């Protein structure tokens, strides 16, 4: 029999600071984290904005001797994981570490390290490439380092499905516990993509907003004037436990993760299927897995990137699954405020989704000013809304047509 799985800890690193409270309060207040990029010169770039984490400092969390051997994306994950550990009040000395593991997602891994060392190679020669290049750039190192930091010897994996990575990671951790293979899992994802190559590469695809004159208005999911997504960075970590394990240590249970669905578009390398069949089948699979249906869903935390293609197609998928109820179900995009954090996005959306259940308030989709006839659902424009939330669906769709949907439920329901 399948075990029930509780969400007992939430940690994050975002432009709003460290911790769930800093994130969720800012989301509810409708703040934008988008500004002009300060970490490098963007003179030659069409897009000059991102939701950067400025003045990130891992020092209060880990000694320099640990963090100096980590890429920025691993540092984000390490700090978010420690934040989640405190949040869940886990005592590592009283944990069966062989039954506790980590599954994280990342799209790019340690790409700053890759770029830095490639520059070294070209400018200074093969003998000047750091021996730390490989252990800092490979995408599995966030999960590897967390295991070392916390001594967790249970399942340890990394999932790379672009912008759906951390949703698939949470789903994999959920199955690890529901099938009895682990008692407790850290899961989620991390991304640090704000660098010249990634900015230029997404720019060449015309995927990014060029609203450089009004950075805080650039990320506008579901708005008719949207012109692409805004790059973001950060990490979200969710701690999942079997109900028995959580209850045995008197843990606070935020919510339950009830189901996960996965699918592929099998359509195009970057464009979503215009018929929305892949997104629709991931949503249906997640609802079925959760033993529920769309009639019970009180909120959709959308993928909602603000690209021309995503928003109407995601809307179409929601309508296909929800029928008439689609028009009565709030659908939000927190990317309107923190940009698109790629491999960390779904984890931060999970943090937001669980927070709506815990706090009874739905953050808005900001910058939704001009309605688009193809995006005609209730996106909670501009202002947060109080509501009792028992069941939330979160959508994530990655390049390659890789889709993942999660269902979180209140433990009262």
């Amino acid at each position, binding site marked *: 029999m399948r075990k029930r799985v509780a969400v007992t800890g939430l940690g994050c690193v975002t432009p709003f600071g460290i911790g769930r409270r800093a994130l969720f309060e800012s989301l509810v207040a409708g703040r934008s984290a988008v500004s002009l990029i300060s970490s490098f010169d963007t003179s030659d770039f069409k897009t000059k904005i991102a939701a950067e984490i400025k003045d990130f400092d891992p020092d209060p969390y880990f000694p*320099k*001797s640990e963090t100096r051997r980590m890429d920025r994306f691993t540092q984000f994950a390490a700090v978010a994981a420690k934040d989640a550990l405190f949040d869940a009040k886990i005592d590592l000395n009283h944990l069966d570490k062989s039954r506790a593991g980590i599954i994280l997602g990342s799209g790019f891994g340690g790409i700053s390290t890759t770029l830095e060392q490639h520059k070294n190679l070209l400018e200074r020669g093969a*003998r000047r490439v750091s*021996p*730390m290049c490989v252990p800092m750039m490979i995408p599995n190192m966030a999960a590897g380092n967390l295991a070392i930091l916390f001594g967790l010897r249970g399942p340890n994996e990394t999932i790379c499905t672009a912008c759906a990575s951390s949703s698939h990671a949470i789903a994999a951790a959920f199955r690890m516990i529901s099938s009895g293979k682990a008692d407790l899992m850290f899961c989620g994802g991390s991304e640090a993509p704000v660098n010249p190559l990634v900015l230029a590469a997404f720019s060449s695809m015309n995927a990014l907003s060029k609203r450089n004159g009004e950075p805080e208005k650039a990320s506008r999911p579901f708005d008719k004037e949207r012109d692409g997504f805004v790059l973001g960075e950060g990490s979200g970590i969710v701690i999942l436990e079997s109900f028995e394990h959580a209850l045995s240590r008197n843990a606070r249970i935020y919510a339950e993760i009830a189901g996960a669905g996965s699918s592929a578009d099998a359509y195009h390398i970057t464009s979503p299927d215009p018929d929305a069949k892949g997104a629709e089948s991931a949503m249906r699979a997640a609802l079925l897995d959760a033993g529920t249906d769309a009639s019970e869903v009180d909120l959709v935390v959308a993928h909602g990137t603000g690209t021309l293609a995503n928003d109407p197609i995601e809307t179409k998928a929601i309508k296909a699954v929800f029928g008439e109820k689609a028009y009565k179900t709030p659908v939000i995009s927190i990317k309107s405020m923190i940009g698109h954090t790629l491999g960390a996005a779904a984890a931060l959306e999970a943090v937001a989704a669980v927070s709506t259940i815990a706090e009874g308030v739905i953050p808005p989709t900001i910058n939704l000013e001009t309605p688009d006839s193809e995006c005609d659902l209730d996106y909670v424009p501009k202002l947060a809304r109080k509501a009792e939330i028992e069941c939330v669906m979160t959508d994530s769709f990655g390049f390659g047509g890789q889709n993942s949907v999660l269902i979180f439920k209140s433990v009262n329901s």
Partner: protein
Amino acid sequence: MYFEKIADIVRHHLALDENIEITPASSLKGMKIDSLDVVEIIMKIEDAFEIEIPDEKLKEFQNLGDIADYIKLVKES
């Protein structure tokens, strides 16, 4: 002066506290660091003194004093 510069590089690279003493008799192996750190420290020393230390020479060094002596020899001969 060679040794002091090497000690600074090691201290900075390993983010060591000021109260941890580094002497010519200190060895990189004795500092409980792994082979990756050893390579990085040697690269930084090579950069700082603008020299290249041959791999076979590296095996002969017992401690930081040996590295300082070798650099003195190369730079002053």
